């Protein structure tokens, strides 16, 4: 079956959506990602949508679902690289992607995640978190 690849880079799962996804493919990605978060103990999910020319309400909902599911699984999602025309259209469509963190590019997203994980460590105390073998 056709699938969007999920790459693991240390504690980060990286997904770069390069194709115009049909709905089933988007749902498969949602399932695959939650599986991989649990299996790899990932703390962050980075979704690069810079190749996507269209984000409709279905894809928008998928991004929101991934963000919510990963949060429940103790991982944080950042959506990266939304095109300006897509952002304008999405807001006019009525979706503001509340609850989804966004960054303009991968570098900014990595900075964001590093800051978040540093703060997380400070709050929990170093060494108490046995889920970080990476």
């Amino acid at each position: 079956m056709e699938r969007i690849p999920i790459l693991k880079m240390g504690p980060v799962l990286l997904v770069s959506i390069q194709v115009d996804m049909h709905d089933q493919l988007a749902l498969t990605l949602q399932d695959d990602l939650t599986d991989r978060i649990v299996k790899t103990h990932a703390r962050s999910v980075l979704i690069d949508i810079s190749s996507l020319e269209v984000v409709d309400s279905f894809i928008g909902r998928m991004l929101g679902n991934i963000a919510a599911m990963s949060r429940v699984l103790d991982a944080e999602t950042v959506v990266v690289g939304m095109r300006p025309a897509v952002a304008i259209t999405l807001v006019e469509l009525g979706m503001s992607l509340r609850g989804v963190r966004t960054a303009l590019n991968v570098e900014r997203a990595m900075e964001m995640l590093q800051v978040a994980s540093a703060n997380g460590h400070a709050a929990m105390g170093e060494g108490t978190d046995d889920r970080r073998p990476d």
Partner: protein
Amino acid sequence: MTVARTEKLPVQTSEDIVKVRQAVRAWAVQLGFSLVDQTKIVTAASELARNTVIYGGGGTVELESLLEPRRRGLRLTFADQGAGIANTEQALKDGFTTGNGLGLGLGGAKRLSNEFEIHSQPGAGTTVRITRWT
């Protein structure tokens, strides 16, 4: 107003939704739409195509390129023979859905278009026609 070109496409499956997006994009580019206008009409088409598949049980879309002395337009007519909509006014409200969606499709498609018409009767299917001008 002159109708310069027409084409009818099937809207039966989730793959057809992708094909409709691609066809609408190609037509919008050819008509000289700006990138934002392209994105808006493609996104509106995606929402309506999904409604045709999910709620209409499949149907067709007719694409028409419109030429006027001062502007060019793209008109899309989605037609299905499904259950129809009892109350189209209610169906246009954001958040209203009889399925699993977010209820943004119809209202969102209207906001993303310059002209919007809907005709539906219970048991007699639904026709939605949108136009976007350059």
